């Protein structure tokens, strides 16, 4: 590989570095660690040190993201399907090497480290779809036939993840695919067909594909005041915690719902109620605004991208963040049933943190290279 485009790297970094993206993500990460400290300060089972581990992962993820941002994203475009294939293989490895935890195998263990391939798969799917759309630059409306290939690209990892089973991640994969498709122009007729098929598949899945606990979660969501000592405990107590925050919150480390152990899974599924209880409506608005800013910024980066690969990459990463945030906040506030979806940079977990940071690295990459085609600055750059 020729490295001459690395000339003037520092200068380009200074000029083209996306400070908004960086500051938004950094703010989320810092607040996330602080919140994790409070959330796990009362947890039993050795979670109390999780925030330190989370810092390690953030630092590690930051370094990897920096490296990823530094290499022109078109290199990834070339490797697109290779990366995708490695992701699918690692998903298959889960079934061979994985160990079952609470009825599903999601982890691969390498030495004393473990990771969730399904997390990284989200990014690999985005890359693969980006490459596909990049290689297939249609300008007229797409027909159903045009969508078959990207649908297969999305369906393979989704099916594997469903088999683990990990409904939350599968849902995210589908929604990321849909979000990226929404970027393209599809014929109205095809769109109607797609809609019809989607409804049928969703209905069938709703009726026959859900497991016992998933049905229970949906029942719980539809009847929020029933069985609050049983399956509705978590959403009920989470809602109380959020409400208990009031306007200004109870103060850091002073949320009684968290301090007195009424919240469960506060390091994974429910970090937001901890935050909302401690910082109130004002803090919650600030946090939601940060997520909204991150998502909208990804769209902005996509809009300014100079090619399809970059645009789809930014939109894909943005949709990963968006759907995670919306689902997690939605379930924490009772708007949506419980699906095990993490809150980006708030939930504890190496794979999740790495995925988000690497994704942001991609967006940063696209953002920094948005000026390539500019005739004015091209001479300065190269």
């Amino acid at each position, binding site marked *: 590989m020729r490295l001459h485009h690395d000339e003037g790297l520092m200068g380009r970094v200074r000029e083209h570095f996306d400070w908004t993206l960086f500051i938004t993500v950094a703010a989320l990460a810092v607040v996330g660690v602080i919140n994790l400290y409070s959330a796990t300060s009362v947890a039993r089972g050795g979670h109390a040190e999780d925030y330190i581990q989370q810092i390690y992962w953030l630092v590690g993820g930051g370094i990897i993201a920096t490296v990823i941002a530094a290499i022109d994203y078109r290199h990834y475009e070339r490797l697109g399907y290779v990366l995708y294939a490695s992701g699918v293989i690692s998903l298959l490895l889960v079934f061979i090497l994985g160990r079952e935890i609470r009825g599903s195998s999601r982890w691969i263990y390498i030495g004393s480290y473990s990771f969730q391939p399904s997390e990284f798969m989200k990014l690999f799917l985005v890359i693969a779809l980006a490459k596909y759309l990049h290689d297939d630059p249609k300008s007229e409306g797409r027909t159903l036939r045009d969508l078959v290939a990207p649908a297969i690209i999305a369906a393979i990892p989704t099916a594997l993840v469903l088999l683990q089973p990990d409904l939350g991640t599968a849902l995210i994969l589908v929604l990321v695919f849909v979000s990226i498709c*929404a970027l393209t122009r599809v014929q109205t007729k095809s769109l109607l067909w797609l809609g019809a098929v989607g409804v049928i598949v969703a209905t069938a899945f709703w009726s026959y594909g859900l497991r016992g606990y998933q049905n229970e979660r949906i029942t719980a969501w539809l009847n929020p005041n029933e069985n609050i000592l049983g399956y509705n405990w978590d959403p009920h107590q989470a809602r*109380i915690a959020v409400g208990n925050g*009031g306007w200004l919150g109870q103060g850091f480390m002073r949320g*009684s719902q968290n301090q007195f152990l009424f919240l469960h899974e506060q390091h994974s599924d429910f970090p937001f109620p901890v935050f909302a209880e401690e910082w109130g409506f004002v803090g919650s608005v600030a946090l939601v*605004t940060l997520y909204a800013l991150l998502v909208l910024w990804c769209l*902005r980066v996509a809009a300014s991208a100079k090619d399809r690969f970059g645009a789809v990459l930014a939109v894909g990463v943005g949709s990963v963040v*968006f759907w995670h945030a919306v689902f997690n906040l939605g379930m924490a506030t009772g708007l949506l049933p419980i699906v095990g979806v993490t809150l980006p940079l708030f939930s504890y977990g190496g794979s999740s943190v790495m995925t988000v940071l690497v994704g942001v690295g991609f967006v940063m990459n696209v953002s920094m290279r948005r000026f390539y085609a500019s005739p004015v600055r091209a001479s300065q750059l190269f």
Partner: protein
Amino acid sequence: MTNFLVPRSDVGEFRRRYRWMALAASIAFLIILGRLFQLQALDGAAYSTIAHENIIRRMVLSTTRGVIRDANGKVLASSRPSYDVEIVPGRVMPSARPVHYRNGQPIVRDPDSWPRLAEILRLNPEERRTFDARIRAACVSDDDKSPCWHTPILVREDVPRDTVAELKQHHDELAGVDVVGVPVRFYPYKSLGAHMLGYVAEVDPEALAKVRPHGYEDLSREEQQRNNPLGYEAGDTVGATGIERAWESYLRGQRGWEKRVVDARGRYRTGPAAEDLVDPPARLDPIPGRDLRLSIDADLEQAIDKAMRPHAAGAVVVVDVRTGRLLALYSKPDFDPNDLSGGAGHARVREAFSRLYADPLRPMLDKTMSGAFQPGSTMKPFSALAALEDHVVDPDHTEKCEGYVVFGRRIFRCSHVHGSVRLREAIARSCNVYFFHLAEAVGMDRIARVAQSFGLGEKTGLGINPESPGRIPTRSWYALRYRGQFRVGFTLNMAIGEGDVTVTPLQLAMAYAAIANGGTLYQPQVVRSVETSDGAVVQEFPPRTRRQVPVPAEDLRRVTDALFDVVNDPNGTAYPARDPSLDVAGKTGTAQTGYVAKKEEEPKLSSFLSQNHAWFSSFAPAHSPEVAVTVLVEHGGSGPEVAVPVAMQIVHEYERLQAVRLGRPMSAKVPTVKAKGPGGKP
């Protein structure tokens, strides 16, 4: 250079989409913000209340049940702490819980404390296995809501104090072991006066369901108070019989509460940070139960127990004739209320009950008021009063007793051949023949009316145990029962307290008290006053008169003279067994029980049950009566031989106790009045 990598692709297709996507994302986030506004800004206060209720638990502060004391302040019933050992399954045996993994490694669990506890409590291998199985069953799952954490298992009840000390000493090694102090009712005199005092028991679910109907928990505090004024909860002790039950509302006291901070697993949190979270009022002090001061004299009860020792079954009532206050209520055989009140564990209670209910002598029956017996000749004074009323029979009229008398085709027998007797001798010597003639002249209904006016055949209203009304039959009663075939024999039997006449010892004692005090029928009372736990009198119960019996003083005098003769005339039935140092008047009775032996009964029991009831109903001192003493020895045989000595001992002890307490000399009998009755005083 740009061409080295890949050709730039046209992004025109995407251009118009970004705005829509941004709009959709913004709407999604705005919906979330709206929801947050609803939860936090609009409903924040309500959720704060719920969150507060989550961590505040009203911890019940138990109250202590009132103490029952006798007339002289001796404690008859109080409470003592009993120490129960309970375990939290998941904490005493973490190894029973499912293994959890973290990053693939099993999470290390605390060591079991259970073997150490089993060692300290000296559980036998079988008990250990049983509890092992229960712990494992509880910890099949260890979710936060599993019985593994929330359902303590009771291992031992009422452990000795040195075991408690040992458990405290090894507290650090005994994770999950709780020693729970439970107040247990304690009766220091054990079985003495057991029927009268009663016992306490765990409130039964049916009674509880009445005061705590379905949905009780959701009622307001005022409604709860109205439904359940005494605040019963499952597992509470409640008076089951006797004074414990009748005076429950006084003895019980009122629970208090204290707000405590708890976490989701029900563990109490302490420290200033936690205490700041408690909103005022933080505490309602419990009100201890009221103490009762009885009119009962424990020393006298003990003397009665001693006097009744030779006899298997019976009842004694001692009542102050001047007030109607009961000095002793004694029923035999008895039971130890300590066994029934749960202090020694549920198994002990069950065992005691099964033993008591299997006993043919009916130890659970309060024979002073719940059992009705033929009074035998103790009925005669009332028949005599009926005869004297309106001068139906001239007291100086004589009847000749030849030992039997024939009415119609039946022969009615007397105990002896008494020869010519007047009313006075007839009572003193208990001549049935005289009373047969008397009955024939007086008629059933007149005798019944007089007997009833003295409270026989009706409940006294003491109300500490279910009272039997007894029965004073009348012609109309027989008409209903025998469909018009009234026979004069019914009247004859009734006059001597046989046949269908039954009374309770309590009724008889109250009636004799009325004879002794000039005709005032008192309401029997057993509680003298209600006191606070520091001894201040809250409520006193003055004597209550049921009625003034409409009987001429002259008639009463004749009868009391005759009753004096029963004991003091050499021909009197009680004379041989009298205590010459005592001034007693009374009437013996030997009542046939009408018992017909059943084949399935063992011969020993059968021969016992075929014996007559021995009665002696009396008052003393005869010349200025203070107490009436009624003694019933069930299946004891002859009244004069069996019941009189018991009564004499009781009166003797009464006099001795009075002498000690009041510092007065033993009231020596006035020797010269031997032939004169008490009514013969100037």
